[in-house]
């Protein structure tokens, strides 16, 4: 299996689907001639032409709205928001039109919106957010948050295949930093099936996206203290793998829910509540949440470091739980 970066894996999956299926097209700001702000679609316009790799005006509403219409006409649009933050301008089209059309009018809307998300680069308040929890609250949408290159490719292909609007959150901090083996050719990774990133016996971490690696480093540090940490990578936030989460909670009896999005109303709250409802008798400690504080994402590197959960924060949280 070839080794690829997370970004190359996304690009590989998307290119493969475009070669395989004429209905798949890409639309977004600077995705064509420039190859996308992060170069995910580099070389695509040369291969597929300007009507399948469409440079749109600076208009997220038009991009997502047009994808909805095109999807209803049988296409399989893949929109790129230049940054996940800009999806706020397309909220209405995802939430008002795309998410509700199947339920009320019987019309499926098979679109994928790719969302380069996450912080760690001093992107500031408008180029760093992780808005998956906002969309997880909307019935009719699916939210995908891959952590590994292999999953990024397989989940993107699943997203394109899925008959629903899918938000595909690509963590920017993983784009070039994370490499891994990626199967050649076409394969899918199913939605709603978590991945055990690391097996352990004493404490569980439930997380997704870039925080999988933060948790991994914390777990390594705790090896020396004889604390065995299990890490569950949700892969998809909607649908989410309740069974895998509950099984891990029952196994270790102590759970830390970790995410890079802000705390209040974050998806971690849903997970913690479900564990409390379903696995209360199996717990040996409170379900802990570790998330960014309830502030906009700050610009200064010092402040951003204080904002995004760090390895030390996770170590401290796990230590506390292990000792409980």
């Amino acid at each position: 299996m070839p080794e690829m970066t997370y970004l190359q894996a996304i690009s590989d999956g998307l290119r493969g689907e475009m070669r395989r299926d004429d209905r798949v097209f890409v639309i977004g700001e600077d995705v064509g001639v420039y190859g996308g702000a992060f170069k995910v679609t580099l070389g695509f316009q040369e291969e597929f032409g300007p009507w399948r790799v469409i440079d749109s005006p600076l208009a997220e509403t038009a991009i997502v709205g047009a994808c909805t219409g095109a999807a209803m006409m049988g296409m399989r649009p893949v929109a790129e928001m230049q940054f996940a933050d800009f999806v706020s301008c397309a909220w209405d089209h995802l939430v008002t039109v795309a998410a509700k059309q199947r339920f009320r009018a019987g019309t499926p809307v098979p679109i994928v919106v790719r969302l380069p998300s996450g912080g760690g680069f001093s992107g500031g308040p408008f180029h760093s957010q992780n808005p998956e929890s906002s969309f997880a609250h909307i019935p009719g949408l699916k939210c995908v948050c891959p952590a590994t290159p292999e999953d990024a490719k397989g989940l993107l292909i699943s997203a394109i295949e899925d008959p629903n609007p899918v938000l595909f959150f690509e963590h920017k901090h993983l784009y070039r930093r994370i490499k891994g083996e990626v199967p050649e050719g076409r394969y899918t990774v199913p939605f709603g099936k978590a991945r055990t990133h690391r097996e352990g016996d004493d404490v569980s971490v439930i997380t997704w996206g870039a925080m999988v690696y933060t948790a991994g480093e914390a777990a390594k540090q705790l090896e020396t203290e004889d604390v065995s940490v299990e890490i569950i990578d949700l892969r998809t936030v909607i649908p989410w793998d309740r069974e895998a989460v509950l099984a891990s909670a029952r196994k270790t009896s102590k759970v830390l829910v970790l995410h890079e999005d802000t705390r209040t109303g974050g998806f971690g709250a849903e997970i913690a509540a479900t564990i409390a409802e379903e696995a209360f008798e199996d717990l040996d400690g409170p379900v802990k949440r570790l998330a960014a504080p309830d502030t906009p994402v700050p610009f200064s590197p010092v402040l951003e470091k204080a904002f995004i959960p760090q390895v030390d924060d996770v170590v401290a949280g796990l230590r506390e739980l292990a000792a409980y």
Partner: protein
Amino acid sequence: MAVREAEPVGSLSEVREAGLDREDLLGIYRNLLVTRGIEERGHILYKQGKIPGSFYTGRGNEGSAVGVATAMGPNDVGTPLHRDMGVHVTRGVEPWRIFAQYMGREDGPTRGRDGNVHMADARLGMIAMVSHLPAMLPVAVGCALAFRIRQEKRVAVGWYGEGASARGDAHEAMNFAGVRQLPVVFICDNNQWAYSTPTHLGYAVEHLADRAAAYGFEGVVVDGTDVLAVYRETRTAIEKAREGGGPTLIESQTLRMEGHAVHDDAFYVPKELFEEWGKRDPVERFRTWLRENAELTDEEEDEIHGRVKKLMNDALARAEESPQPDPATLLEGVYATAEDLDTPHHK
């Protein structure tokens, strides 16, 4: 590019040139009567307490809606709004299903999941509207984008009102359509009142069709009470789009002859305006035209009215028999399955 003000339609020969024979004309009259009939009967149902929520009509807009829909080809698609019942009627939605929709029954196009005119029959090329009206314009543009990518000679029609023209979606949709010269026709139902907001508080240009020039395509103003003029202008625009000529914006001028919805008595609309536009009622206007230009006889008129009346009676009876949706099915259909893609649109 200055906005063009369309002339009214005069003679029968002019209409023939526009592609309508006498049978078509009688069909238009029938569709106007059915449209009005559905909304008048709907109002009665509402007063009887059989319609939950609110109730909206398009009184005064029947000519515009029927005119546009008559100009559309069978494979064209559209996103009609709540004043455009005539579009659904002309495309062939059965009235009993509309009454079932009003009453939130299982046989309405949305099976009780949505109400009033928030419906569409996908098999007839229609897409169900949302309340955020201009949101449907980018959707229509997306349909046109699909046609352009696949090089199909199909056209999308997107409706909005003068109220909706104030929102960014309308701008983004028209700008994108203009940049890419997509096969889409924008119909602005300018009925002069956005709920209680008059036009001078909604926009500052003389005509909304003036804006078309800013997007790089033609704008046309047409009298929306003249069903034949609306038909002629829309047909020209649709065929232009079909042949690769890009979008057109047609501003269809009418007056909303009732309140925003059934609860609203429209006290804020000057009485003289209702009197003036009442004289230009699109249904009556077309009836007069048919008598003067197409030799509509008393017998024919009685026959059409009789058929429409029976259609309404039968439709109401059938809709009242439609069951309430089963609460046990509430959770179904939030997410689509692969089988759902096996629909006319998705093929």
